């Protein structure tokens, strides 16, 4: 059979895999990501799954999706409306169809459109038969369940197991469409199911079935080519923010020779860090699953008191529970790293969705004057550098540091130029030495530059002293309630955090050095803002993007940067928390763009808002 296939070159494509929680959409998305990375595309991903572990099969609540945006140029976001939607069942179609671009490609597993599934999804008539889709999209109805059943004929596996390989069938179709090699996925299957040759066989057959279907079926007339992106030279891998943070912790441990104790309590989406680090005991990383959130940070602080670096991680409600212990770390001037993986709030909120709404909680959310440095990674890969820096600063300044990450960063992935740890800042811990002088040890004596006290750990001769949550006299560390001392200590603790500005490099400006509009972002809003500014610059507008990683203290050059533009726009996934800080710090009349939809900001909205401000 011969068929005419047109080859079309595209700059970038966004694909969304959607199906039931049990349909393996995260897996298909992950394999497509890996293959595209190896093919040399730049990419960004957004997994999206329900909070319920096993929502009823076929229900709207049980739909899970994975979006990948890949491109021949540098990209910063997982894309908005997909160009291609893979819908494995009626519920997935119902939930995601609205966002598919008009004229977009829709690939549907026709076999899943049974009466029962249609009813569960609330369809009165079958959209794959009533023609309601055909005029609006380029639709491909594929009988994937049947294809895999035929392909796996003769394999000694129950039909249920064979049915489960249909995600690989869908993947095969897409690999054909985007001209991707199958080998990386086949290699992966061999590794993953080493002891289950039948499963390897079934999935291999399913993958080929999908690929061959694309190759032979007359319905596909176009293949698409997305060329390699011109990334900086070097060795790459894909990375998500959770793994990047863990690697940052391990790098901190190795460069400082400090032991790490990581203590946490299971919570979505921060648990991944506990899982990953628990596999690295051979590097001297101790992990502790605590009885609750408070115990998690308490164990971490106790470890820091003992001379290890204590680290904890959690998300919104868990961070709320940890705040009192953060205050104790501030008071006792001990190093501690708190990784806050923001999710939709308040309360339990949207556990599996992303948000930037815990900024004020991180910067201010404690009793008393309780300053804590806060660093917010800007991309999944940046979680490595931000976490390393948090560990280094915590020890150098003897302070707790918050890494303000979020659900999008920890779950999202991107190609990552593998860093060389030797290039990172040196990391030195100042342990107080034995005191044999016969003079009384002074636990709150300070370094004149940083104002940090030395780390005086139990087990060291002559350093016996008492610390605690009560106010301390400067230098001696004795309990002290005198008005003058308290006032001085409040200022010392604030100045110590302020001194960290000496560690912050110049803020990178992307775009015009002066102009009509500065788009200022913090943390994970980076990607959407960068994409918006790229587009606006192409349209010759006088705009720039400044991306802030340290949110407390703020970069020392920020005031000057803000003064170079007529207007300042701050897009963020909250109702304007960073804007509040910027307005109060710099008296700048910044404008906000605030979308709180449980997902990264829409670059299109930023572009619209920017134009509106420029044209005002």
């Amino acid at each position, binding site marked *: 059979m011969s068929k005419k296939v047109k080859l079309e070159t595209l700059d970038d494509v966004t694909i969304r895999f959607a199906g039931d929680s049990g349909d393996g959409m995260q897996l298909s998305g992950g394999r497509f990501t*890996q293959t595209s*990375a*190896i093919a040399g595309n730049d990419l960004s991903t957004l997994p999206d799954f329900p909070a319920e572990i096993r929502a009823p099969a076929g229900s709207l609540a049980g739909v899970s999706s994975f979006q990948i945006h890949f491109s021949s140029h540098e990209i910063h976001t997982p894309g908005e409306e997909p160009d291609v939607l893979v819908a494995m069942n009626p519920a997935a179609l119902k939930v995601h169809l609205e966002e598919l671009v008009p004229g977009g490609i829709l690939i549907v597993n026709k076999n899943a459109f049974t009466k029962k599934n249609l009813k569960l999804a609330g369809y009165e008539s079958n959209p794959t038969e009533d023609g309601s889709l055909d005029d609006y999209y380029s639709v491909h109805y594929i009988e994937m369940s049947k294809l895999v059943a035929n392909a796996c004929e003769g394999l000694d596996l129950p039909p249920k197991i064979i049915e489960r390989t249909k995600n690989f069938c869908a993947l095969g179709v897409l690999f054909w469409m985007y001209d991707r090699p199958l080998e990386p996925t086949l290699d992966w299957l061999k590794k993953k199911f080493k002891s289950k040759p039948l499963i390897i066989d079934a999935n291999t057959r399913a993958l080929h079935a999908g690929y061959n279907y694309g190759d032979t079926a007359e319905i596909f007339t176009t293949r698409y080519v997305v060329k390699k992106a011109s*990334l*900086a*030279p*070097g*060795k*790459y*891998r*894909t990375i998500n923010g959770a793994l990047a943070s863990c*690697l940052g912790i*391990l790098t901190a441990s*190795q460069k400082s020779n400090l032991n790490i*104790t990581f*203590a946490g309590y299971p919570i979505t989406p921060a648990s991944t860090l506990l899982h990953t680090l628990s*596999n*690295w005991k*051979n590097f001297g990383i*101790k992990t*502790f699953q605590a*009885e*609750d959130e*408070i*115990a998690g*940070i*308490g*164990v*971490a*602080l*106790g*470890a*820091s*008191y*003992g*001379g*290890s670096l*204590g680290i904890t991680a959690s998300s919104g409600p868990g961070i709320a529970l940890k705040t*009192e*212990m953060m205050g*104790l770390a501030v008071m*006792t001037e001990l190093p501690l790293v708190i990784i806050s993986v923001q999710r939709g709030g308040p309360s339990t909120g949207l556990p599996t969705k992303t948000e930037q709404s815990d900024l004020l909680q991180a910067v201010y959310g404690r009793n008393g004057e309780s300053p804590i440095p806060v660093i917010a990674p800007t991309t999944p890969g940046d979680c490595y550098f931000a976490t390393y820096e948090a560990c280094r600063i915590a020890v150098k300044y003897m302070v707790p540091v918050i890494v303000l990450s979020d659900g999008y960063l920890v779950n999202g992935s991107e190609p990552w130029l*593998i*860093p060389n*740890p030797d290039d990172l800042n040196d990391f030195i811990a100042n342990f107080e030495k034995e005191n*044999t002088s016969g003079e009384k040890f002074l636990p709150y004596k300070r370094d004149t530059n940083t104002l940090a006290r030395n780390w005086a750990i*139990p*087990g*060291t*001769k*002559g*350093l*016996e*002293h*008492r*610390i*605690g*949550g*009560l106010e301390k006299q400067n230098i001696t560390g004795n*309990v002290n309630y005198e008005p003058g001392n308290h006032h001085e200590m409040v200022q010392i603790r604030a100045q110590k955090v302020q001194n960290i500005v000496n560690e912050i490099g110049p803020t990178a400006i992307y775009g015009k050095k002066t102009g009509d509009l500065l788009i200022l972002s913090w943390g994970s809003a980076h990607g959407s803002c960068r994409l918006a500014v790229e587009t606006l610059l192409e349209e010759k507008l006088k705009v720039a993007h400044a991306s802030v990683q340290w949110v407390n203290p703020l970069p020392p050059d920020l005031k000057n940067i803000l003064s170079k533009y007529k207007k300042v726009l701050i897009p963020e996934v909250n109702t304007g928390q960073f804007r509040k800080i910027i307005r109060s710090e710099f008296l700048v009349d910044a404008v906000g763009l605030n979308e709180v939809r449980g997902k990264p900001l829409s670059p299109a909205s930023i572009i619209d808002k920017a134009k509106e401000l420029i044209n005002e």
Partner: protein
Amino acid sequence: MSENQILTKDDFSSDQAVRWCPGCGDYAILSQTQKVFPEITTKKEDVVFISGIGCSSRFPYYMDTFGFHTIHGRAPTIASGLKISNPELSVWIITGDGDGLSIGGNHLIHLMRRNIDLNVMLFNNRIYGLTKGQYSPTSERGKITYSTPMGSLDHPFNPTKLILGAEAGFVAKTIDRELKHLQEMIKRANDYNGTSFIEIYQNCNIFNDHAFSNLTDKETKADQLLRIEHGKPMIFGANDNKGIYMDDTTPKVVKIGKKYSVDDILVHNEKDEFIADMLSNFTSNDVFPEPIGVLYCKERATYDGLMEQQMQDAQKKDKTPKTLHDLLNAGDTWEVK
């Protein structure tokens, strides 16, 4: 100071003025602790006292060792982190009935089941002292306090029973006025490898005076206090004339004389959890005397010991990546030229 110089009580006394109310039972506990520690260790830099919040939790300030006065109820968490990060240390948690059993109850029970090698001294005065006299989780029902003018409604915790229920391996009880006994219990707790728990009845002479006077007054204590010792019969009474007798499966208080001899009296076995459970039920029981001593002492694997083992075992596994470079370069990688 040479390595093995004998320390004295003064070496364990800090220069901070002690600020408990005059007549407080805490003074006796502090003094006995300072007295007994020279017998426990020659390296005071390895000793750490960690407390929560409350009157008892001021304790670390007065010990010239390392000390950490932490957060209400949270001392077990910080102590656990400290001990797993540095297993060489001798870690002591000081807590009270409010701190340890109310706000910190969750941490305390989990500490017990983990069996981290550290020690807990719980000062039980059955009242909130530092916040000026509210009823506590060990106050008897009907307690009239500032927050319960018509009497408290909650049924109290029985601490040793709770702690045994949480799978503790060492459970002891003593009284602030029993100076030698208190020292002995501290030594026993120190010897135990795992989490050791000592409940100390402590009189708050301001807000709950005489809470334990039946156990400390000469006239009553002989008949109401049972000193238990491993391998010895459970005998009490003014002339050692009473004992605990097992009537089938039920304990009974009997008179030693015509019907029962000393040989009929139940012999304490601190390794027997059933006896420990039974003794814990004697607390605040009208029929039985109040037991003091080591209720239960049985070694089992410690969390910190198991953790060290895992850390070593992880080195031997073939599959684990060996270097940071391996991890950074794990998975599929590709070169961009």
